[in-house]
Structures are given as C-alpha cells and as structure tokens.
C-alpha cells in the first residue's frame, strides 16, 4: 500500500472510530426508545469541552480530566432522561425524538453559557510528535483513538451480552411489559441507557479533541455523522455501529484524498443512500425490514 493511501486509511479509521462510538450511543437509545436521539452529538461536544476546561482552567491531570468529563456528561444524560423523557405520559418515538432536539438545544447553549464560545483543545495523550508507520506520518493520538474506541466497543459488547444489567436492559427494550413481569424495571433500564449513551459520547468527545479542537457548535455535525454511521450499519445493531462508523470514516477520508475534499460529504452520503436503498437493514442489520 502506498504511504499516502495508508495515511488516508489511518485517518479514516480514526474518524471512523469516533463515528462508531457516536453511533453506538445512538443505537443504545434507539433500542430503548425507538427514537432518534439528537442530543448524542451535543454530549460528544460537551465531553471535549468539559475535559478541556478541567485540564486547562481546572489544572487537572489529563487522565483526571478525561474521567471527570465522562462523569459530568453521564450525569447530564441521566438528568435528561429523569427530568425530561420520564415526564412523558405516553412516550411515542416521534415525541421523544422531538424532545431530544430540545435537550440538544439546551445542552449546547448551557455549554456556551458556562464554558464560553472559544474553541478549546487538549494535548495529545502521548505527545503531539508524529510517528512514522510504514512511511506514513501518524499522530500518536490516532492510535489512541482507534485503541480506546476498540476497547469501548468490546466493553459494550460484553456488557450487553454477558452482564445481568446489560441483558435486562435488552429485555426491557425488546418487551417492556414482559421484562417488568420478571422483575426488570423498564424505567431503570431507560435511565441507564441514557447514562451509558452520554458517557460513550463523552469518551468520543475527549479522545477526538487533541486532533480537531472543539467548541460549543461542533455537536450538531458530529451527531449527524454518528446517526449516518448508525443507519449505514443498521439502526439498533451494536456491531452495525462499529462497521457503519468505520466504513463512513474510510469513505470520507478516501473520497477527500482521492476524489475531492469539497465533495467528500456528498460522496459519503450518496454511498449511504445507495446502501439504504439496496440493503435497508444496513450493512449488517438483521434484515427485519417490513415492506408496506
């Protein structure tokens, strides 16, 4: 593989990992509510902003700022469910979707009011000096992103597949009444879904900040990309989030390097629409598509 293509592939894998994490958060809430969560991107932005504030103004060590930011955003996610979504008498996907737009607007403006409008950054986790990989110059942060995203993905897989809490959350999402009969509280499951989705979003936000900086208005685009990745892989599918994210990231990176950086989004979205038309369940969705 020529060095410049390798460079594009690595860049694509790292943005793809970020998209995959955002898509994972989307899917967790989609499973629990059947709604499209517009706040997901804002939680990503908030993770980066809070970490930068803790590190810069709070003089915390990098690892502490990372954990602190994830904790703060997870609490915001929990509060969003408890104070807003929980109040709905009859939650329908349409109303929950609209409410998440409101949550997104509030989150974004709260970050702007408390942390300001200036872009914020973080140093790379192991310095900012590029390292050479097979002739390509790579930021060490790229490898951190891919590694941390992989760990989170495996963690989520184990959590939903092996732990009692994870399994009961899946049960509550699939069949709330039956789950309640066997002692699983669907409300609790919903609350935990929002907390986990927000925490995963925050992780994505913290690890991308050293490469791209962040500011209060970055969330919408990130959420938009994450949602696209989720549908590319198959809405609601956890492995789908990973595949969708990586494919979208690679498509964007290769399209911008080999075709035209101006049209990279258009290329990515045309492919996405084609996939949607040919395989509506997504690249590795389970194929439960109902035709009308």
């Amino acid at each position: 593989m020529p060095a410049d293509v390798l460079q594009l592939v690595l860049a694509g894998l790292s943005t793809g990992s970020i998209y995959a994490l955002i898509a994972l958060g989307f899917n967790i809430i989609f499973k629990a509510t059947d709604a499209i969560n517009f706040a997901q991107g804002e939680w990503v932005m908030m993770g980066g902003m809070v970490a930068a504030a803790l590190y810069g103004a709070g003089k915390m060590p990098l690892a502490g700022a990372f954990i602190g930011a994830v904790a703060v955003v997870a609490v915001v996610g929990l509060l969003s469910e408890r104070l807003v979504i929980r109040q709905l008498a009859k939650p329908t996907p349409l109303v929950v979707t609209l409410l998440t737009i409101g949550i997104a607007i509030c989150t974004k403006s709260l970050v702007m009011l408390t942390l300001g409008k200036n872009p914020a950054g973080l140093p790379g986790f192991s310095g900012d000096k590029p390292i050479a990989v097979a002739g390509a110059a790579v930021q060490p942060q790229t490898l951190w992103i891919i590694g941390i995203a992989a760990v989170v993905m495996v963690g989520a897989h184990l959590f939903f597949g092996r732990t009692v809490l994870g399994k009961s959350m899946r049960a509550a999402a699939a069949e709330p009444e039956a789950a309640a009969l066997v002692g699983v509280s669907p409300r609790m499951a919903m609350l935990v879904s929002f907390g986990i989705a927000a925490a995963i979003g925050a992780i994505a936000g913290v690890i991308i900040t050293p490469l791209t900086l962040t500011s209060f208005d970055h969330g919408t685009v990130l959420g938009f990309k994450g949602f696209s990745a989720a549908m590319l892989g198959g809405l609601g599918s956890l492995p789908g989030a990973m595949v969708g994210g990586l494919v979208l990231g690679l498509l964007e990176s290769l399209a911008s390097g080999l075709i035209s950086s101006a049209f990279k989004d258009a290329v990515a979205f045309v492919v996405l629409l084609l996939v949607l038309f040919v395989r509506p369940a997504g690249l590795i969705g389970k194929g439960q598509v109902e035709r009308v």
Partner: protein
Amino acid sequence: MSYAPGALARRVARDRVRLALVWAVMLAWPFVAPNEYILSLGVMFLINLVLVASLNLVLGYAGQISLCHGAFFGLGAYVSGVLSVRYGITPAFGMAAAIAGTTVAALLIALPTLRLRGHYLAMGTLGFNAILTVLFNELVPLTGGPNGLAGIAPFGLFGYELDTPRRFFFVAWLLAGVVMLLILNLVAGRIGRGLRAISGSEIAAGALGIDTFRFKVAAFSLSAGFAGLAGAMYAHFNMYASPETFSFFTSVLLVVMVALGGWGSYWGPVFGALIYTAMPELLRKFQDAELFLFGLCMIVVLLYLPGGIAGLRARRRAAAPAAPRASAAKEASDGAA
C-alpha cells in the same frame, strides 16, 4: 380524533370562513406596518407559513419524520434563482420549474424509503439534506458557492417590477392563501382522513383499504412541491440565496415549528410560522441566554401541551363544561397578561 360526518363538514366550513377572514385582515398589513423592515417580516411570515404548513402535511397528518424540508426550500430557491441569474428565465417559469424539480426529487427519495416501515424516510431525507448542502456550496459556477447567489431578478407583472416588500407582499399573500386553501381542501377530504389514519396506525389503515404507500408518497411529494414554491418566493423576494439558509439545522427547526404550533392541526402552522419568523428578532434581544430559553420552552410545550399552541384552545374548550368558572378566570388572567 373522530368526528361525526356532519361535524367534520361544519368544521371545514368554519375553517374556510376563518381562513377567508384571516386573509382579508392580513391584506391590511402593508398599510399598518410602520416601516419596510416590519413589512418584509410579514412577507417572510407568509413564506414560512407555506413551509411549515406543507411540512405539517407529512409530519403532522401522516406522522412521518422528514428531515430535509430545508433542503427542498433551498432546492426551490436555487432552481428558480439559478435559472434567473444564469439563464435569464423569468421568475414565473422559474417558480414552476422549482415546484416540478422539488416534487421529482421528493419522489426519488420517497419511492424507495416509504416502502419500508420505520425510520427510513428520516434517514433518506437526512442524507438528501447533506448532499444538497454540499452541492449548494460546491457547484460554485452555478450557485455561487458559500458566498451565495446574488442578483436574482424580482417578480415582474406586465413590466412592473415587484422589487420592494410592499409590492411583493400581495404576491406572497395570494400564493400563501392558495396553498392554505389547497391544504384545507386536502385534509378535509378523503386524503386527509387517510393520512390521519396512517399516522394513527399504518396496519389498521391498510386493513381499511387505504393504499398507505401511495398516500404517504403523495403527501411527501406534494409537501416538497410547496416547499419548492416557498423557496422560489424567497429567492425572488430576497433576490439572494445562500447555502446556510437551507442547512440541516433549518430542517430540524422546521420540524420543531410544526410541533410547537401543533402538529396535525390545520391552524398549528400559523403559530409555528409566527414563532419561526419572530425568533431571530427575539433571539437578538436576549443575546446568549436566548437559545437555552428557546430549548426550555420547546421541552415544556412538548411535555405539557401535546397539541402545541393550537391545542391550547381545544383543551380549554374540552375543560370548559367541567369547570366553566376556572376556565373563564384563566381567560381573564390570560387577557390581563
């Protein structure tokens, strides 16, 4: 909601009278507006009303989430605008082309996605909005790119240019009135009932013999055509179009306006369009806290007024027989406020 046949007919007749009254009153706007700027807000309100009311057809009546109404608005503006600036085609033909173009684009999205049950329309429209935003920005020789498309010709009537808000107001008034009347006739009839049935339950609607696929496709492409009309009106009124007006955020905001006004209600979009038109002005006054207040208001309306602002009256009327005193007192206090 269900009505006895007679009740529905009476309701529609009443809405027709109301529409005529509201439109007659609106004709006074150019004469009472204190300056050109306030007058132009009236024109923007009419354009926004076409936008919100047409989105309400899809979102409110048929219950389908569409996330590219802003892109249809933009497509209409750019089709008509580019034809005018680059090819010197008169606005009336440009407008027809804008409506045709957006309707065809909508069909292309609707045919594959609406066959499937679920969020597929939301996904398809989201992608479509993204693609159009890139095209508006990058097809610089045609659209002028991020700097926008300047020099769009205003409407003309027998050689008389409608290039000021005062002159254009009457065109917008007429076009928006026609759209509102068409929508009223549509939702009052078989199609409106079919769409409401689909939004209630697609399976039940299908079982009743409604061709749910065709109804959804028809509602979506018609709504896109109206958005294209709104776009052409905007382009020839503003004589300028820029990509950021038609971003994904615009599409999301329009969805919000349908919800705030009251989705699936005929008069809801009037309130939604009022908020959408007034919002930038209000936001300028509040500066930074504004966005937060807006988000908060939105959450409160969605949680506690499921019918939106238009639902307020219906709720009050429903509560009235049970507690006439309380509701009278509430009305009095509302009036005082």
